[in-house]
C-alpha cells in the first residue's frame, strides 16, 4: 500500500471544490482516460479579472490525483493569476505533506492544468505537454505513449532537479509504458544538468545576515531536498541563528539510522554553497 500522508488521505476522502463552474473564466483540461488520469480545472475571477475567487475540479484518477486536485484548488483561491502561476508541483506536494515519488506526476498534472487554464484565458500559446489534446505541439514528442514533449520534460527535470530516468517517469509518466524513450530521457537530463552547472552560483565572498538566510533556504530547496526526495525522505528548516542552522527530518529521513550522515551532508552542502562557518543541528520539530 502507498505510504500516503494523513493530509493526502484527508483530501481524497473529503476532497474540496469538486464540481464545475458554469460561467468559469478559465478552464484547463489535461490527461485522458487512456492515460489513467485526467483533470479538468475551472477558475472564476473577480470583477477586475485579476484575482481567483473560485476554483473547482473534476478528476479521473487515483487517490493522490484527487488529493492533488483538491490541494491545487485550495491553494489558488484568492491569488492573482500571476501569483497562481508561480505555484510549482513541489508546492502542491508540500501542501499535502508530501507524495510518494511514484505519484509525483499527480502534482505535475495539477500544475499543468493550471498553466493550460491561464494560458487559454490569456489567449497566449497553450503549453502543449498535456497528453493527447488537440493543441499545436511545441517541441518534439519524446514519450510517444503519453505524448510528452522535450520542452515539457526539460522543464520538469529542471524545476524538480531530477537526475535519473526513473524519477522522470515518476514525475511525468514519460518512459513508464513501453520504455522506448528512456535513452532520450537520459540525454535530456544530461542537457539540463549541463545548463544548470553553467549557472551554478559560486559561494559569495561576503554576506549580509539577511542574504545568508535567503541563500540557506535556496540551497535547502534546490540542492538538498530534491536529493532527499529521491530516497523518499525530506527535511524542514526550523530555525537559523547566525550560522547555526536547525533542521528536522521528515518522511523516510525521520528516524532513519543514517540521519546523522544526512545532517553532515546538509552541512557540507551549506558550507560549500553559502558560508564556511555554517553548522547544522538536527532537532525534533
Amino acid at each position, binding site marked *: 500500500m502507498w505510504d500516503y500522508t494523513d493530509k493526502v488521505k484527508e483530501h481524497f*476522502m473529503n*476532497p474540496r471544490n469538486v464540481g464545475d463552474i458554469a460561467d468559469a473564466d478559465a478552464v484547463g483540461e489535461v490527461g485522458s482516460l487512456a492515460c*489513467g488520469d485526467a483533470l479538468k480545472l475551472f477558475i472564476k475571477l473577480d470583477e477586475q479579472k485579476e484575482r481567483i475567487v473560485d476554483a473547482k475540479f473534476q478528476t479521473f*484518477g*487515483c487517490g493522490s490525483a484527487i488529493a492533488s486536485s483538491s490541494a491545487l484548488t485550495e491553494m489558488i483561491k484568492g491569488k492573482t493569476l500571476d501569483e497562481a502561476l508561480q505555484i510549482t508541483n513541489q508546492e502542491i506536494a508540500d501542501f499535502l505533506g508530501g507524495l510518494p515519488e511514484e505519484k509525483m506526476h499527480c502534482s505535475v498534472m495539477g500544475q499543468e492544468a493550471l498553466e493550460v487554464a491561464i494560458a487559454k484565458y490569456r489567449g497566449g500559446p497553450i503549453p502543449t505537454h498535456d497528453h493527447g489534446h488537440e493543441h499545436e505541439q511545441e517541441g518534439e514528442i519524446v514519450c510517444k505513449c503519453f505524448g510528452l514533449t522535450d520542452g515539457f520534460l526539460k522543464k520538469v527535470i529542471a524545476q524538480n532537479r531530477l537526475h535519473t530516468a526513473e524519477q522522470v517517469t515518476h514525475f511525468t509518466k514519460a518512459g513508464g509504458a513501453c520504455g522506448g524513450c528512456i535513452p532520450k530521457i537520459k540525454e535530456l537530463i544530461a542537457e539540463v544538468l549541463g545548463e544548470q552547472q553553467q549557472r551554478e552560483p559560486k559561494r559569495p565572498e561576503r554576506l549580509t545576515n539577511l542574504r545568508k538566510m535567503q541563500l540557506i533556504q535556496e540551497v535547502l530547496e534546490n540542492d538538498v531536498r530534491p536529493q532527499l526526495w529521491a530516497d523518499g525522505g525530506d527535511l524542514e528548516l526550523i530555525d537559523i541563528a547566525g550560522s547555526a542552522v536547525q533542521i528536522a527530518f521528515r518522511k523516510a529521513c525521520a528516524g532513519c539510522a543514517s540521519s546523522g550522515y544526512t545532517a553532515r551532508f546538509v552541512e557540507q552542502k551549506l558550507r560549500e554553497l553559502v558560508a564556511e562557518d555554517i553548522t547544522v543541528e538536527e532537532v525534533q520539530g
Partner: protein
Amino acid sequence: MKEIYLDNNATTRVDDDVFEEMRPYFCELYGNPSSMHYFGGQVQKKVDEARQRVAGLIGAHPEEIIFTACGTESDNAAIRSALEVFPNKRHVITTRVEHPAVLTLCRGLSKHGYRVTELNVDGEGRLDLDELRSAIDENTAIVSVMYANNETGVIFPIEEIGRIVKEKGALFHTDAVQAVGKIPLNMAESTVDMLSLSGHKLHAPKGIGILYVRKGVPFRPLLVGGHQEKSRRAGTENTASIIALGKACELAGRYLEDENTRVKAMRDRLERELLSLIPAARINGGKADRLPNTLSIAFEFVEGELILLYLSELGICASSGSACTSGSLEPSHVLRAMGVPFTCAHGSIRFSLSRFTTDGEIDTVIRELPQIIRRGREMSPFGRELLQKS
C-alpha cells in the same frame, strides 16, 4: 473495524487448524529431519506425512513432491531445469497472461539466445490452441501455461494443451498456484510434467511451496548443496511450514466441494447484484470457464486505486488491475492482453473469496460499492451521462 477480506488470490488467512499443526515445530520439536537422532527423526516422520497429504490433494505420488520456498521458486526451478535437460532446444512457449514469476523469467531468456513465444488470449482471456499448434516444434524445450489466471480466474484447458505438447516431445509445466484447492486436480491422469503450488494461497503460511515433478521426468535442481529433497532442492527443510502445508492440503481437499458450491454461489450473487446495480460495468473473462472464487469486474470512468481506497476505508479488502496500484503506469498486462479497453482496465477490481467469506460480507459489498462508484463518477470529468442513469 473487522476486515472484510476479499483478496484471497493475493494471500489467504492461515487456517487455525493449520497454525496449531505447525506450532510445536518451532520451540519444541525443532530438530533437523536429516539428523540421526530420534529428535530429528520424529520431525522427518511429520515431513513425510505432509508430503503424502500434499500428494493426496493433487493425485500425485509423495516422491513426486519437492518442497520449495514459494510458487516463484517452483516456476523458476521447473523452467530452468527443462532448459538444462534439453541444452540444444532453444525455444520456450508461455502465455501473455502468466504471472510475473514465469513471464519475467521467460522475457529474460529471450535476451540469452532463447526464442520465446507468448501465446495470445481472446477478449475473454481464452487461449487459441491453434496458435500453440503452429508455434510448437522439435526445438521447443518447455511449454509453461498457468492452470488458472490470478486476475480473472479464467481456467485454461490444461489437458488439451498437454496433449499437444507431448506430441512434440517438449516438457509441460503449469503454474497451478491459483487453481489448487479451488478446482479438483489429478496428476495420476494428467499430461502435466511439472506443477507449481504455493502454500499461502490455500490457508498455509507464506514462504512454502512445492514443485511437482512427474516420476520419470528428468530434473536438474535450481539450488544445489545438501541432499535434502533427494538432492532436488538443497537447503534445510522449512519443517514447520511443510507440516502446515500438509495440513492445509488435507483441509483443502475436504473443502473443495464447499468452494465449488457455497463460495461459488456467493461469488455469483456478488457478480449478479453489482452488474444490476451499477451501470457501465462488465465482467473480465465473464464468458470463460472461471475459478469459483474470483470476480474481476470493470467500472468505466472511475480509477481502480480510488475504488480500493474507498473500499479500504470501510474495511473491505480487494485488489485492482489498475496502473496506479502497482507503481507501474500501465494497467495490468492480463487485462491489456485481453484487449480490455483502457477506459475499463483502469477501473477493474478483483474480488477473490475463500471458505471464510460470509454472506453478510457479500451483502456489505453489494450495499457499499454502488455508492463508491457513483461518488468516483461524480468527481470524474468523463461519463457524466451515467450519473443520470444510476
